């Protein structure tokens, strides 16, 4: 029982990072029906900006988060304008292949610019273990920070999408771009804004991953990116609560498999779960057939 709860607590903090990344995938998918495979690299760039902000500029973690959100958003919007926008009227496959190419470009660009070594991520806050219930469970200050920041970002996202004018425009664009433009909505700007949001969430996830694993690397975005993509599909791609659910579920499954079985099997189990769920419910857990996107 104690292992179970301890592993679930572990899973929640990793899962909240997956959820943040998955939200980026799902937002972009919701608005332009594209799996943005370069999203993992946006995360990596966010992590490096976070690293430089703390290690070189000496900023605190919150300023580092803001700066990395800003830089990643910029990169995200540039990618969209340069690589995806010209292909908006072509087939989905062309854009998908472009996204994979963009991902490879950024991975290898990262290897050239940042080097091939693992970089230790500065421990921006003191690692304090908190003992709960008479010391039966331990929660670290890092886990709490990761969890709290992730939840805050998700609440912010829900607010933007649900209660602001730009959020309403995003929902309209995701449903019908032509009709949205007939309302006077600047569709290009709304798409860019979606990339800003997705990339910001990715940047936060990157910095938090740095805190979680304590190292960063130019290829660090690949596996979490893939996992979060699985999470987004698991929950129902294009559905915001689905991405959150999928992310948390994935984190907890991984933690449980690692705790009870072996860390070697955590990745295969995750993909098996994905396959099973897609067989039983092809639209994902919260996916609808006439899906409400974004």
């Amino acid at each position, binding site marked *: 029982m104690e292992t179970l709860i301890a592993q679930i607590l572990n899973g929640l903090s990793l899962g909240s990072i997956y959820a943040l990344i998955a939200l980026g995938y799902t937002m972009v998918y919701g608005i332009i029906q594209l799996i943005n495979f370069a999203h993992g690299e946006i995360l990596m760039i966010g992590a490096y900006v976070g690293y430089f902000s703390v290690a070189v500029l000496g900023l605190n973690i919150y300023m580092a988060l803001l700066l990395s959100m800003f830089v990643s958003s910029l990169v995200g919007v540039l990618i969209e304008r340069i690589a995806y926008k010209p292909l908006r009227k072509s087939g989905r496959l062309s854009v998908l292949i472009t996204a994979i190419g963009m991902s490879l470009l950024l991975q290898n660009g990262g290897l050239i610019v940042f080097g091939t070594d693992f970089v230790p991520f500065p421990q921006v806050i003191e690692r304090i273990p908190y003992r709960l219930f008479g010391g039966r469970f331990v929660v670290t200050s890092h886990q709490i920070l990761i969890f709290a920041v992730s939840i805050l970002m998700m609440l912010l996202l829900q607010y933007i999408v649900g209660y602001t*004018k730009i959020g*309403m*425009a995003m*929902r*309209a664009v995701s*449903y*019908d771009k*032509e*009709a*949205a*433009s*007939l*309302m*006077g*909505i*600047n*569709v290009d700007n709304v798409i860019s804004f979606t990339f800003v949001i997705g990339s910001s969430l990715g940047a936060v996830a990157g910095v938090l991953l740095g805190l979680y694993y304590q190292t960063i690397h130019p290829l660090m975005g690949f596996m979490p990116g893939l996992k979060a993509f699985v999470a987004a599909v698991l929950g129902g791609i294009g559905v915001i609560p689905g991405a959150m659910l999928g992310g948390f579920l994935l984190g907890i499954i991984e933690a449980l498999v690692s705790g009870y079985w072996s860390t070697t099997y955590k990745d295969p189990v995750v993909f098996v779960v994905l396959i099973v769920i897609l067989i039983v419910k092809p639209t994902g857990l919260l996916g609808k057939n*006439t899906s*409400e*996107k974004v």
Partner: protein
Amino acid sequence: MLKINDLHVYYGAIHALKGINLEVHEGEIVTLIGANGAGKTTTLHTISGLIRPKEGNIVFEGNDITKMAPQKIVARGLSQVPEGRRVFANLSVRKNLELGAYLEKNRKVVSHHMEQVFQSFPRLKEREKQTAGTLSGGEQQMLAMGRALMNRPKLMVLDEPSMGLAPLLVKDIFAIIKRINEEGTTILLVEQNASMALSIASRAYVLETGKVVLSGPSAELAKSEAIKKAYLGG
């Protein structure tokens, strides 16, 4: 108010509009009739900036809007009610109307406009909180028109408002169009239901495979033998 000069539009190699000339004066109801594939919707899409013409230009209130982005054309007071209504089925009736006034920043003005739309369409008021996808076809058409009215357009362009509606409802919709016009909005109406369209329009253009083949006052066109044969089932 609206003047289209020698408009040519291509879809790839297909020459969809072959030099359309068309004019709408302030206060009028002008209808554009023709069979399927004649180029009616293409003309409206080009007016709204959704398609770019290869040649020709479109002038709205003295300004060339040919190369303008759709949202800028809407901002100038030219709203379109698209074919098939295209309401945001996943959003509530209220949100749909709010989106219609997307360019209006003042919330008070938006709610004032909404009150007026609700007055014109009491059915929409009853269904305010329902998602648009659950409305009937006629109600969706009213919503699409109400949504366009939220922008307070000077010129409202309607694409096949009667499509897929029961005859009784078609009558209602045309009565509403007439009322909107009487309240000061100029109308350009595209219709397959030629007899209904001719009955409320002051002037009409007949489109055939991308060309205007006939134009003139509706009353005259309604009497013309060629029109009767081709479009009025007589």
